[in-house]
């Protein structure tokens, strides 16, 4: 397991919001590593800092102190533009509220990051169509987000995040707004991607269904890592959960 390549690492990451009376200590010193092929799930009570942590790992937000490294690059030393480019090339984001662009149809939403990457149209088409087929989205290419169900929208959002074959996919409560069956199929889909392409996933969730798929579980409390353990699959000790 230690032979796995390290994608990202956090060292004593602190994140405060506001100042003075309204100061919120969202993260209070987090150190962790993300290794290639991880399928980790972050849990913890509401407000414990899960979303904040995901945003910081993805370079969407900056730390108050401590450092984040991604492929050995220190985020503290990178410009906003450089962070954008890292996200574009190596990181996929999936949000709780689908967050598709309303003026683009399903196909175009999925294609968007490939377009930013400068991939040729024919190649983009091939990749998106192939993925849509795999994800059961074929036939929905021309539908706009408002014409799709929540589960379908989330599927497109996942397609958008993984079509570029990123090193790391960050997924923040992606099953919160879909029914359990859909959640199950979304997770199966991602587990397959993890297995076949060794895409690395980091989830945040309250949903037991997600936890069932986890290879590693990180419990966050009050902005610090309370415990970290390998899951059922990896150790066989998690069965009574």
């Amino acid at each position: 397991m230690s032979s796995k390549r390290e994608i990202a690492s956090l060292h004593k990451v602190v994140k405060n919001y506001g100042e003075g009376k309204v100061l919120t200590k969202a993260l209070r010193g987090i150190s962790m590593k993300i290794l290639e092929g991880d399928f980790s799930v972050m849990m913890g009570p509401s407000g414990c800092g899960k979303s904040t942590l995901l945003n910081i790992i993805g370079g969407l937000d900056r730390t108050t102190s401590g450092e984040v490294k991604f492929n050995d690059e220190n985020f503290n030393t990178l410009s906003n533009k450089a962070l954008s480019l890292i996200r574009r090339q190596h990181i996929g984001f999936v949000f709780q509220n689908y967050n598709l662009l309303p003026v683009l149809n399903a196909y175009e939403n999925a294609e968007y990051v490939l377009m930013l990457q400068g991939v040729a149209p024919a190649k983009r088409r091939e990749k998106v169509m192939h993925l849509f087929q795999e994800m059961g989205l074929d036939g929905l290419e021309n539908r706009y987000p408002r014409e799709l169900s929540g589960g379908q929208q989330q599927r497109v959002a996942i397609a958008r995040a993984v079509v570029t074959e990123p090193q790391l996919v960050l997924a923040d409560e992606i099953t919160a707004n879909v029914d359990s069956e859909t959640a199950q199929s979304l997770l199966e889909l991602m587990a397959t991607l993890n297995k076949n392409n060794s895409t690395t996933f980091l989830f945040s969730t309250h949903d037991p269904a997600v936890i069932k798929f986890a290879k590693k579980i990180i419990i966050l409390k009050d902005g610090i890592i309370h415990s970290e353990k390998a899951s059922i699959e990896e150790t066989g000790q998690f069965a009574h959960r």
Partner: protein
Amino acid sequence: MKLVKISWRNLWRNSTRTNVTITAVALCIAILIIFQSLIIGLIGKAVHNTTNLVVGEVQIHAIGYLDDRSIYKSLKNVDKIRAVAKENNIGMVERSYGFGLISSGTKSAGTQFWGIDPESELKYFDFANHIDEGNFLTKTSLKKVVLGNKLARSLAAELGTELVIFVQGADGSLGNELFYVTGILGNVADNIDRGAAIILRDDFDILFSTNNLIHEIALNSNGKLEAEEIQKLMSAKAAGVAVETWKELMPTIAIMTEKMSVFMLTMFSLIFTIAASLGVMNTLVMSTYDRMKEFGIIRAIGATPWLIIRQVSLEAILLTFLASIIGTVIGLSIAIYLQVYGIDISGKGNLAFGGIVFDPIWRASVSLKSVFLPVVLMMLTSIVASIYPASIAARIKPVEAIHYKP
């Protein structure tokens, strides 16, 4: 999927807002096109009227003639100039000038005598039509003189009055002759009104004992050629003479008309394009705030701030482009109508001031420039106006924007 396509679709999300803005910008462009053509028409016509009166677009003199107006500084090689004028269809008149004294009864005045050919003056210039009393000269008007109105007044001369003229001839002899007033000019130009006595070239030669001395050639293509073009044509063929355009001959008027048109066009263009671009800015700022969340998302999935600036600016460009098409169609139609039919501004008064003669019918003059300038100006100011909303969109923090609720 292209950026343009995304911007285009974004433009039509709030179609009412976009339509209102497009209409406003289109109207501004239309008004600018109309105004621009009207001003160019007004000034152009005024300049044309002024050059048409007597000066012409280009004049040729012997070198140094205008400094001392010596009767001996006459033009040589007139044939060459005649040939060039004929070849290029440029109207041309030849004038002789000399100084002398006119007396009538107890009154007398120093005068500039013009020896002219009435046929060509009538054909190519306008001042001969500005006769207040009597008639202009004809080919056979020997010993007849046409006076500037102020000169006539100071001599208390009327039609038919007998005038005694004293001059020093070119050979040094003293010439004196009797002439009769056949016409008095209306207001033409100050120097003519105060001091011109116009006679036939034949009479001039007798009076001044000269033989066909020509001091001035005035050329008028009636606007068919630019003054500078005529100047070039003439300079190329006729060496050793001073070829000057009306702008060089009447610098005050040239500067005045130039300043007038530049001032009016600049003021007007500024007011309208600024107003219109504020409209564009307002639309884009509103739509930026409406879409904060989306900008956050595309930043999160890898769009750089610069890409967002491009996308917002592209929306401004598309909007202005549409408005330009509509504005050009409307503005051009009205401007062409005004070019053909014009606006009657005659009223009653004299439409001349400061030596510039305005036309009673104000016509627009439509040119590529009068369309091009407003459109380009509007495009540029729209792009500038989009910088503010674009920078709002580009500067957002993705995390906050994703959770932004408008």
